[in-house]
């Protein structure tokens, strides 16, 4: 291994490890969730955390914001939240000469790390305010487009759709999330640690271990990891198997899926695979890496049809079946 590559990998692993360690000071358990969140950040993607209230989703994101030396903002999504409340708006200002001018007042979206808390409590119209920002890292207000500072990272939390007062995220919105992570209830041991940490005088303090430049550097490292065509095609086959209209679709997909994963899904699998390869001290992506990130990167991109919804089919089960059915390439 060349020194430069070796050093890059070591730096990557080191920084990743530091960030994870700092977050873990506050967040008990959820190692996979923490990994997923940091991976999404390093993949130049956004992450959607789903879980019932009270599981520490918001705390996880705020802790991550504390760990990274970046501008952080939080948007609490409510049914009456308007898009302008997110993006900002032009307000009339009086200049020093006494002239009335329209001046853009940036919204909370103008930050490096944006927490969209309970994103599915806002109406779809408001939710859609995030679309441009998440995809193009820019915000257009009126006739003017404002570029967001890099790195830009949206961490959204949502309650399960079955809960009262929630609006399902639009498909386009969902597709823009790099990963959808499910936050489950902590274990008894984890809960005990949580209680110890949160019911005492001393609260754990986290350090800022990552800055924007480092994150951008790590993103560059991720992109440099090579992937062999067969592995890439493996990811494509998995993605294609979710499309019910294709002959290669899995039987479950044909029956329960309305819309399969978009190309962003395969992109997410490959990028996620590269990060995982680096974390495992490898300079190439393996099929194991693809499989490891497939659930998190595809579950929100596979949309169920009426029958699937009625049968309460979990997209994870469909994706797992697809992973089991598709052989690794030789």
């Amino acid at each position, binding site marked *: 291994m060349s020194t430069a590559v070796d050093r890059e990998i070591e730096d990557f692993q080191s920084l990743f490890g530091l960030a994870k360690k700092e977050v873990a000071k506050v967040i008990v358990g959820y190692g996979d969730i923490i990994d997923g969140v940091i991976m999404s950040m390093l993949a130049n993607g956004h992450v959607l955390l789903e879980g019932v209230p009270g599981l520490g989703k918001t705390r996880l994101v705020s802790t991550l914001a504390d760990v990274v030396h970046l501008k952080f903002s939080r948007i609490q999504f409510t049914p009456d939240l308007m898009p302008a409340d997110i993006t900002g708006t032009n307000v009339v200002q009086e200049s020093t000469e006494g002239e009335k001018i329209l001046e853009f007042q940036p919204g909370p979206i103008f930050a490096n790390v944006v927490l969209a808390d309970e994103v599915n409590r806002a109406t779809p119209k408001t939710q859609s305010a995030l679309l441009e920002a998440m995809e193009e890292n820019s915000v257009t207000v009126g006739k003017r487009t404002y570029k967001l500072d890099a790195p830009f990272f949206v961490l959204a939390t949502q309650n399960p759709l079955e809960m009262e007062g929630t609006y399902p995220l639009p498909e386009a919105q969902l597709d823009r999330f790099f990963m959808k992570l499910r936050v489950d209830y902590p274990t008894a041991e984890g809960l005990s640690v949580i209680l110890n940490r949160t019911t005492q005088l001393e609260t754990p303090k986290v350090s800022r271990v990552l800055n924007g430049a480092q994150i951008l550097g790590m993103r560059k490292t991720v992109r440099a990891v*090579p992937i062999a065509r067969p592995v890439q095609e493996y990811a494509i086959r998995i993605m294609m198997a979710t499309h019910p209209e294709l002959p290669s679709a899995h039987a479950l997909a044909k029956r329960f899926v309305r819309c399969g994963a978009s190309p962003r899904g395969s992109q997410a699998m490959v990028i996620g695979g590269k990060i995982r390869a680096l974390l495992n001290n490898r300079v*190439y992506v*393996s*099929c*194991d890496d693809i499989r490891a990130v497939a659930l998190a990167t595809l579950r929100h991109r596979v949309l169920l049809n009426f029958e699937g919804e009625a049968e309460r089919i979990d997209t994870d089960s469909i994706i797992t079946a697809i992973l089991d059915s598709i052989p690794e*390439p*030789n």
Partner: protein
Amino acid sequence: MSDRDLIVGLLKRAERRSRANRVLKNLAAAASISLLIPIAFKLLDLVFLFRGRTVVLVFTIWGIGSLAYLFWRIRGRETLADVAARLDRKAELHDQIKTAYWFIRHPQDSEWVAAQLRSAAHRTAAMDLNQLYPRFVPKSSYVAAGLALLLIGLNFAPLPWNHNWVYLDAAPAFAFTDAEQALLKEAQALLKKAAAQDKSQLADKVEEIAKELQQGDISVTDAINQLKEIEQELDEGNLDLASIDQGLEEIAQNLGQSQRLESVADSISQHKLQQAADQIRRAGDQLQMGSAEAKQMKAKLQEAAENPRPGLEELSKDLDDAADALNAGDEKAVQEALKKSAEEFEKLAQKMEGQQLKNQAGQRLQNVQASLEQRQGGSPSPGGQTKQAQTQSSGKPQQAGGNSSQQSSPSESADATESGAAGENDADNPQDGGGLMPGARVGTDAPLFGAPTKLDVELQQEQLTGQPDGAPTKEEKDEGESQQARSKLDYRNAPSDLSPAQKDLLNQDRLPWEYRQLIKQYFETIRTQPKK
């Protein structure tokens, strides 16, 4: 060696090892499966006795099929990409070798790709192929070896009807019975012995016919016909032994009246012609010309030379020459003529011996022929039986031209024909006679010699000497009935037309059915003759 060479070299080695293991495994599996077929075939052979051609055909098809199956199993060759994927799985390398091989085939100018190749090469250098692809003996090979041993063992199974294919021995197309084989061997031995005199190749012909029949090259009918041809060859140029015997007897009677030639006559009567030759030479040497003995000798020689029988012309001429020389008082000429006579006796002895050998051989061939005809599903041909009867009774068919007493009577010939025809009935009722049944496996029973002789002997009522009141006692009654049931003529004393040599020949045969003709003749003799 570059990283690429290291990786590709390992992949090639792994491919070879993998292929060798696969071929071995498939070979053993194919062998264990395909060996079931010849084993089943061998087991069937123990029941149905397959011919050599069938065995060869089945084994050829089996061999081709097995090879095709094996080829089908081992066809195709793993690509190096496949081998790389397999190596990754075996060594849990998370697609490292597979990815490296892909980058080798699709080079990219990237520091990361070079690092990947370097890492993979480093890993391959540390790999132990023996551990990843250990050489092994597949379990199915034990099964195959066991089946092969079973197949060989079946060939060596100590069953009388088992044929050992290992020694390229299969069931013949036609199997002679033990009796037939014995007859054929005897016939060949006799023909070889006779061939020392006439240089004939008949023994080889018989052997060839038997071989061709066993190999299925000729049918049973063909074999029978060819045997008949050989019999005809044997018959051709036969001496009229009966006539010669009669002639010799007459010569012996004439010569026996001469004191000097009495011993010669005795030897001739006893059919010791070689001894007679020596004695007549000695008689010539010891003869004193002009003596009464010489005169008597001249007269008897002249008488003996009169009316020569066929086959004895030369001898008669020599005897006549001797008589003439005695008459002329030429001692040297007498001795010369007697020496010639002695030589003629020797030639005659040889001819007769050869003829007897041929007759014996012909008789055995006829037996074989009759047995084959019977096994073929029919009965011995009437002609064959007639001829057989004639041969049995007179020693040769030509004998009919000799002494009238030795001619086969029309009734006899008719009987023989009848017996041959009756043989068909025998075939319909194979339990009679104890002959070889069609399809019989081993020839423990003798072949039939035609139909059983019908007895039409009328018992002669004998008056019993009993008590005055005429009522016989129980013992007398039993004895009387016993006497009535028993023939008063012993079959050994039955008058026979057979010459002593022929009788001797019959007596030499140990096989019981050889006596049947003699026994038959006995009953023919005691048959009530129709009143003229």
